[in-house]
């Protein structure tokens, strides 16, 4: 039991950190421009594939630096020539643009790398076991993922709160016109933020690629959870995204290992089981583990009903 709890906690924190790596970029973009970037998970996938391709030629560590820069550059270009153009047609058009973009990026990746998984491996230097918990080995690569995510959070927080650029970004968040009147090039700031945001997603991709399967359906797998994290954490709050990522990571990991079902709980209380074959019978036998993929969406709907600004959000829509 203790082993299970420890492993689940470690894995939950890790999964949460991975989510945060991606959600940090999305939060920045969302809070800055009010645009929910549907294509964010696709940039994550691009990062993974670029990382794979580059590491084939020059190795993992250079790829870790180059791939995010490339993807960030592509993101900035898309903002400059795509998103900014669509802005004049209204917020719905912006949303739909990123929606279509997500689609197109997935298709292009499939066109270039095919539809199957690619052989993206953990680098040799990290391919060992860091420590052993009870009888299970914990790979060093996962510790590396953890440390990177924490480091990025720290750097982001510092940049946003301590540097001039960060203060300008925070100001553009709530008073874009004022900031423009003060002489700052707000469109350029937007472009920078979009580029950095997508670059962050790409870092998540480069790192997560070897651990998970690098395949063209990566984006669709993590995309919806990403939105849940951002909305639950709060629109405009990086700390909220951090908390929400951890929360959802832990909940999902723990839920998967719990085999408790409604029957176990109510059955012990003496409630009679319903007749088999109906809807109630299905609900009776469902276990928490089966519910694990749904829990984030339940959370999303509840938060949006009762506290739309999210857990720590600052901006009302």
């Amino acid at each position: 039991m203790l082993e299970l709890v420890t492993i689940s906690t470690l894995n939950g924190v890790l999964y949460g950190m991975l989510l945060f790596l991606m959600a940090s970029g999305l939060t920045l973009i969302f809070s800055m421009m009010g645009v929910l970037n549907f294509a964010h998970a696709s940039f994550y996938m691009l990062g993974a594939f670029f990382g794979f391709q580059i590491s084939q030629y020059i190795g993992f560590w250079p790829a870790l630096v180059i791939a995010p820069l490339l993807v960030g550059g592509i993101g900035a270009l898309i903002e400059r020539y795509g998103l900014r153009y669509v802005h004049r047609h209204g917020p719905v058009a912006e949303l739909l643009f990123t929606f279509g973009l997500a689609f197109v990026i997935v298709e292009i990746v499939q066109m270039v790398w095919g539809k199957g998984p690619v052989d993206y491996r953990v680098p040799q230097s990290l391919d060992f076991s860091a420590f052993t918990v009870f009888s299970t080995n914990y790979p060093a690569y996962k510790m590396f993922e953890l440390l990177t995510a924490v480091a990025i959070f720290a750097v982001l927080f510092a940049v946003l709160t301590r540097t001039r650029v960060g203060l300008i970004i925070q100001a553009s968040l709530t008073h874009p016109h004022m900031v423009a009147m003060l002489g700052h090039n707000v469109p350029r700031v937007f472009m920078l933020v979009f580029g950095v945001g997508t670059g962050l997603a790409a870092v998540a991709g480069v790192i997560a690629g070897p651990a998970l399967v690098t395949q063209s359906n990566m984006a669709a797998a993590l995309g919806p959870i990403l939105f849940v994290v951002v909305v639950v954490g709060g629109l405009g709050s990086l700390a909220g995204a951090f908390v929400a990522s951890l929360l959802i990571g832990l909940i999902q990991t723990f839920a998967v290992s719990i085999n408790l079902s409604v029957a176990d709980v109510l059955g012990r209380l003496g409630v009679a089981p319903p007749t088999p074959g109906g809807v109630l019978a299905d609900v009776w036998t469902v276990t928490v583990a089966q519910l694990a993929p749904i829990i984030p969406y339940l959370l999303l709907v509840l938060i949006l009903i009762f506290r739309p600004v999210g857990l720590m959000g600052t901006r009302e829509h």
Partner: protein
Amino acid sequence: MSDAASDIAKLPARGALYPAGVPAAVRLAGPWIALALLFLLLPLVFASGSALTMLSLMGIMIVFALSYNMLLGETGLLSFGHAVYYGLGGFLTVHAMNAVIRDGLPVPLPLLPLVGAAGGLLFGIIFGSVSTRRAGTAFAMISLGLGELVASSSLILRGFFGGEEGVSTNRTKLLHLFGLNFGPQIQVYYLIAAWCLVCMAAMYALRRTPFGRMCNAVRENAERAQFVGYNPQVVRFIAFSLAGLFAGVAGALAAINFELVNSAAVGAEQSGLVLLAAYIGGIGNFAGPVIGAIIVTWLEVMLSDVTEVWQLYFGLLFIGMVMFAPQGIAGLIMVHEPLWQARAYGSMLWLAVTYLIALLPALVCLAGAIVVIEMTYHISVKASDGPAISLFHLTLDTTSVKSWLAAAVLLGGGFVLFRLTWPLVGAAWHDAFVEARGAGRAK
């Protein structure tokens, strides 16, 4: 003064397609009768099995897309989970059909879409009560979350959703009226066409009621709508429920057509498809979703025969529409409405000619783009199939420089020529509008 007054009286009435003197009743019912005749006579032209299936699919999609536009175009609510009501309406219908068959109830098939309507309305009310508290991005997110929730629970509630295989039924086993057992596709087509007509008329009428106008008001400025005395949340809620009702009808028609409903009917892809259809057609216009439904259905069925990267073309089409034509195809057509009303036929004709002139290099450019895409796809994924691909009835060698050069020439040259035609079209446009404005004055 009286000259001007009599001139004004002689102007064609706004929105008039008919000459003055046609009674109002004919003007109102005319288009619908024409539509009914069209639906009636289409199978004579498109008679093969798969053509009838395609027409049936289009009919279903038209109802679905129109119901979606009740939310997006009329009330300004962008929903990413509208397929929930479509799918749930479909599931309730198949369960009802199976119950009717099992218990031998005297219910004929044409009445079953009412079950879908009731189901769509019910779930529209249930989910709408929580969704419509907010508008804008929050609403979009809730709809996404709800959609994912229902889609995920489809694997848990196996009794209702039937697991991966879904729930199947047999439409010929219900009560037969007038000797119709609805086995042949043509009978199913007529059933769908009839329901489609009824739903179209209902949704069109709804638009023109005060409620419909209030939806538009809430879309434009919810605060001002409150000043007039209407609660925007109630307006949205009612619109949402009614949209659910019609989506449920579409789902029921799909259930009857395929005799199968599975969890894909409530999924994100189905929601995305109806969004695509409504948007491409044009959300500002009643005919928009109809056009979009027809085009998207046709593309979805036929495009995959032609190319394996059809999803890429879909995505590019969508992005292109969002960027350059957000008013949709119907919007693009309606841009010409002032010209039509002013009866500036001469300049309209010239405008059409300039369009054709611009179309030719644009087609060349597009052909070049298609060649590049298909060749890239072939090289990166299907290189083991050999270097040759067949496109536009020609065989191209993807490894030879000549093919790539030809593609580049088509793409680049086509685009350059296309750009050169823009001033021509612009001038024709300008002339046409000057003439249209002039026609409104003394003439």
